[in-house]
């Protein structure tokens, strides 16, 4: 019977190009919400988004992107005072609860002069854009952050 059939797996695709707390925290929050709701999530880390996964910076204290003046400084203080969860800890929890795949953009690897050993182990491999697009061509939800 139709209602007994397993529902199709839904998928969320995220292209991450930023490397500041005000992007990484919403990114990690969005990913974990999608994992909680049972979606498979595929992330393509590109440019500053790839920098975010460089091994030491992945656990650095939150830094807000420039251009927000006093509000940016206030947010940094609030995040520290409120003991905000580290964005990568949120991602790791999400990955332990569902299907989360994070790929490094191969062009960014070349431009930034990175090798896979420079990256946090949560990144599962280096991928060309065509492969990422192919993996996510049926995604129900897509974000560019």
């Amino acid at each position, binding site marked *: 019977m139709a209602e007994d059939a397993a529902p199709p797996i839904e998928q969320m695709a995220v292209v991450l190009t930023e490397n500041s707390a005000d992007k990484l925290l919403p990114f990690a929050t969005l990913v974990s919400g999608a994992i909680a709701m049972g979606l498979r999530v595929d992330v393509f880390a590109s440019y500053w988004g790839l920098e975010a996964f460089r091994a030491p910076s992945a656990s650095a204290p939150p830094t807000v992107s420039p251009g927000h003046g006093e509000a940016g400084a206030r947010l940094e203080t609030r995040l520290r005072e409120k003991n905000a969860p580290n964005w990568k*800890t949120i991602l790791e929890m999400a990955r332990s609860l569902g299907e989360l795949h994070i790929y490094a953009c191969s062009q960014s690897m070349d431009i930034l002069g990175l090798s896979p050993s420079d990256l946090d182990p949560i990144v599962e491999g280096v991928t060309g854009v065509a492969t990422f697009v192919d993996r996510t061509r049926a995604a129900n939800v897509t974000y560019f952050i």
Partner: protein
Amino acid sequence: MSETENATASVPPDEARRMVVDARGSWCPGPLMELVRVIQEEPVGTEFELLSSDEGSRRDVPLWLEKAKHQLIEVRAESGFDRYVIRKTH
């Protein structure tokens, strides 16, 4: 130190199948993630008391339970947080 890691789960000794998941202070979607984790780990029939001070949980938790087909027995507003009583049904 992450807020999510601060969430603790404990089993009262005289009521082995009721588990308190204290996710107060954890930010959205931390309490929901804690619930998803304990429901994956514990046996069918277990009841959970999820404590959350996150406003988003008020919609997120019932929505998730409906999708995941587990039972929401009760939601009780306490001072500064909500208590969700949940049963793992399958």
